[in-house]
């Protein structure tokens, strides 16, 4: 179906959200590099903030793409974002400090190829398909890199593949106890893939409002960040993990209460233990 069935009226234009999301996400991921400069791991939480920025942008991209009537395909959009993003992200980590930029460029290329195949080979012919898949791949790569930076303190390949196992008080390097070796990347994949599709999937309908959906996107991002902070505990210093957890809980609590307020504003009625209202003609 190529007819645009839902319009986005008012609110912040998509281009603004895209540019802001991209810049905020890349800058936040780069801020985790302060860890290397200062020799601590306390700045790992910036990786989590980068994922929140990317997820907010991603939820609006899905809205943009799905306004062409791909109603049931909302969760699958999250899957393709991360499926294409994970390739770019893993490859880019080999490039040291240039990793986030390489990830963006590489993901854009992968997204372009996927978009071309979807539109021209599979003949979907959706006008925003190519642009959306490029954006989705970049978002997938950035979110995964953000989680990697948050859980390991760095976005470089060596730190993703080495962890520490404490045996009888001795700390030994181990591949098994690392972000990749322990397959925490699988959990990060699902955390991001559900968080990116949920805001639009939950808020779709005739009374969709942009601020409510974006607030939900931030809420999903911080909620995922809470669990990512818990999973980072064996990989980085406990103090750094607790800082991430603290930031995530504050962010989650604020966005969750805001989201409930916005839902209360938009809902037809807010009832407690009331029967089904009488509707005319029944």
């Amino acid at each position, binding site marked *: 179906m190529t007819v645009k069935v839902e319009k986005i009226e008012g609110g912040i234009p998509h281009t603004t959200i895209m540019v802001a999301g991209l810049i905020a996400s890349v800058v936040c991921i780069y801020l985790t590099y302060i860890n290397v400069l200062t020799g601590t791991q306390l700045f790992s939480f910036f990786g989590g903030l980068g994922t929140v920025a990317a997820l907010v942008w991603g939820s609006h991209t899905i809205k943009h793409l799905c306004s062409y009537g791909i109603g049931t395909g*909302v*969760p699958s959009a*999250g899957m393709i974002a991360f499926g294409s993003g994970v390739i770019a992200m893993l490859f880019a980590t080999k490039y040291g400090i240039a990793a986030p930029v390489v990830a963006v460029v590489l993901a854009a290329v992968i997204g372009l190829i996927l978009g071309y195949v979807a539109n021209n080979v599979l003949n979907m012919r959706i006008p925003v398909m190519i642009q959306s898949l490029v954006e989705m791949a970049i978002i997938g790569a950035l979110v995964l890199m953000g989680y990697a930076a948050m859980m390991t303190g760095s976005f470089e390949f060596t730190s993703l593949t080495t*962890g520490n*196992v*404490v045996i009888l008080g001795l700390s030994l390097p181990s591949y*098994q*106890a690392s972000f990749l*070796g*322990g*397959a*925490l990347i*699988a*959990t990060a*994949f*699902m955390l991001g*893939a*559900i968080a990116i*599709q*949920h*805001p639009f*999937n*939950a*808020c*779709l*309908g*005739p*009374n*969709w409002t942009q601020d409510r*959906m974006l607030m*939900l996107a931030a*809420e*999903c991002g911080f*909620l*995922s960040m809470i*669990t990512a902070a*818990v*999973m980072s*505990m*064996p*990989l980085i210093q406990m103090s750094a993990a607790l800082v991430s957890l603290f930031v995530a809980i504050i962010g989650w609590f604020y966005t*969750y209460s805001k*989201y*409930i307020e916005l*839902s*209360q504003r*938009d*809902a*037809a009625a*807010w*009832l*407690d*233990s*009331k*029967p*089904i*209202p009488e*509707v005319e*003609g*029944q």
Partner: protein
Amino acid sequence: MESIVFGIGITALAGALATVAGAAENTESDIGSQGDPNSQVQLAPQMGYIHRIFNKAVAGEPPAYGLWIALGAGIAWAFMAMQINPILAIVLGSGLAVFVQGVYATTAYLGRTASLAKFGQPVYVDILKSMTTVTMAHAFVAIFTTVTLCHLINAALGHPFPLPLLGIVWGIALGAAGSATGNPFYGKERQYQNQKFGAGVPIAASGNIVRYAEAGERNSLDNGWFSAKLGGPASGVCFGLIVFLELWRTVLFEQVGAGWGAIIIGIIIILVFTVIDRYIEVWARKNYGPYQKPTEEASS
């Protein structure tokens, strides 16, 4: 020989855990109207049928359970890497995963309902409070049992995949089993008890789901009660069989022909089930026949 006996014991235990997981998963998703029955719950207010059914569409069941189980497994893995006792680690992991599930459920209900304001569907706070907690309880059972069986596969049977990766694989399998087996009991049976049995759902009846109960108004706990009787156990048997047969063939036949034994047995199992399914389908057609057009007396 001893290792095979041990392996079969673990297989039986994992199968039993999977059966409990399947039953809990399907009841949880039915209370939340997740999966394909969701479309009718979502459609009902648009057709003028305001209802008191819980509508938590996080995603389809397979992706959603992929996340809950992978999350429970990931957090349990992290705690185990910090030298915490596995049972405690799995409980803590499942607890945190259930917290995430509960938050997703509330945001999904609020979001979907607020977006239907045009049709006058109100947000029922009592529904939100009572249904979310019940789905969280069922989800805890499903997540805990599935993460435990993943841990058994990894630690006792020596599967090379780390716990979170097994979690994502078995989580998606659990969601798929519950979605394919259990949902018809809710989506095709319970929602349309006011239609003639076997009549299908004509366009005119779309969205006209049952909204009133024997006494008062039906909510999703009634649906959970209904589907816990048949849909839940059916999903449990389905997922339990999947886990049991998968591990059984691996434990017994992996040594045969450098691993090819297990693959060949797997193909034979698929063929046996194909024959059984075909037999049931033919038997059902013969006994109940194809859908008949309404006769003259029925239409007059």
